[in-house]
């Protein structure tokens, strides 16, 4: 995925709360943008990109935790964790499949029968994992995720 968006105009001497406001807003927007891409095309890259964006948002929510009203912070953190978790099974399968395909390409042909059978088993598991991806898209549809994140952004203590 593209790297995290650079946040302009931050200063070391500005307050921790002001920095929280700027940084969390941008990381939250990145999650929503990646989630939209996932809804349009739920391929391996899109799943990975949402997870990375979630990880970055989760990181800044944790870093700036004291700056937020606790209930809004807890709700936002829970929503982001849940989204990332729902995509986790599919991502794990994608990672293993990629590694196995790489190994299979260079291993002796006789050994490939076993590895191919494992890849086929992973593909079968992917059906269940894809259902979780669909659930993640559904559970964050409309403005459900957006409103939780916007609420947290507005709950930075001044």
């Amino acid at each position, binding site marked *: 995925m593209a790297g*995290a968006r650079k946040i302009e105009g*931050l*200063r*070391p*001497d*500005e*307050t*921790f*709360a*002001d*920095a*929280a406001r700027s*940084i969390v807003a941008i990381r939250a927007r990145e999650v929503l943008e990646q989630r939209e891409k996932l809804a349009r095309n739920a391929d391996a890259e899109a799943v990975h990109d949402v997870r990375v964006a979630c*990880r*970055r948002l989760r*990181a*800044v929510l*944790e*870093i700036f935790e*004291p*700056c937020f009203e606790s209930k809004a912070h807890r709700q936002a953190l829970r929503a982001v964790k849940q989204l990332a978790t729902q995509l986790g099974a599919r991502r*794990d399968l994608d*990672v*293993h499949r990629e*590694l*196995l395909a790489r*190994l299979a390409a260079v*291993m002796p042909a*006789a*050994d*490939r*029968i*076993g*590895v191919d*059978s*494992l890849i086929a*088993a992973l593909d079968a598991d992917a059906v269940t994992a894809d259902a979780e991806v669909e659930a993640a898209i559904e559970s964050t549809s409309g403005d459900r995720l957006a409103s939780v994140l916007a609420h947290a952004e507005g709950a*930075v*203590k001044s």
Partner: protein
Amino acid sequence: MKARGVEGLDPSGPMRENAARIVGVRAAELFELAERAIAESDQTALHDSRIAAKRLRYVLEVTAFCFDPDAVEIARKMRELQDLLGELHDCDVLVPRVEAHIAQLRTADALAAAAAQPGPGELEWDAIDKAPNSGAYAGLARLELYVAARRARLYGDFVAFWESLGRDAFLERVERATGTASHSRRRDLGNRSIA
């Protein structure tokens, strides 16, 4: 792994001081876990080190503008460490998956072989050779060995990487980058005088 709490954060205080506190705690957390992973070959500490490296990386990426340019380089090193430990973790997750797959194939083949030769009399070896997955086992066993060897090599890479960061010198480097080295020294001296 739950992140260690950071004391004394102040939302109305300057970003730089708050960020330095967080970086200090995250660096110390990583240091302890990585040292434990090496000293005790503690697998949990190894995987927790990955999470600790990730946390330190992210906090540095967000707050590096407050610090010495070396903070960016430390964040880059943390990303390398996180990637390395991530690959190692993938091996640790893949081995049980291969084992579980072998067990599934074995169960299916045992039932198929038994069904192929019903009735009395000793089961023929031929039934085993003709089992639907009989050609898969050798490759899977070699795959398991390959992944274990890959894991061992990655562990060696991790130890070498941690050594290259200077082990003890790592915390001092982080303190220099965040400008807290003199504070820590003062704190140490204070502690000594109390003792």
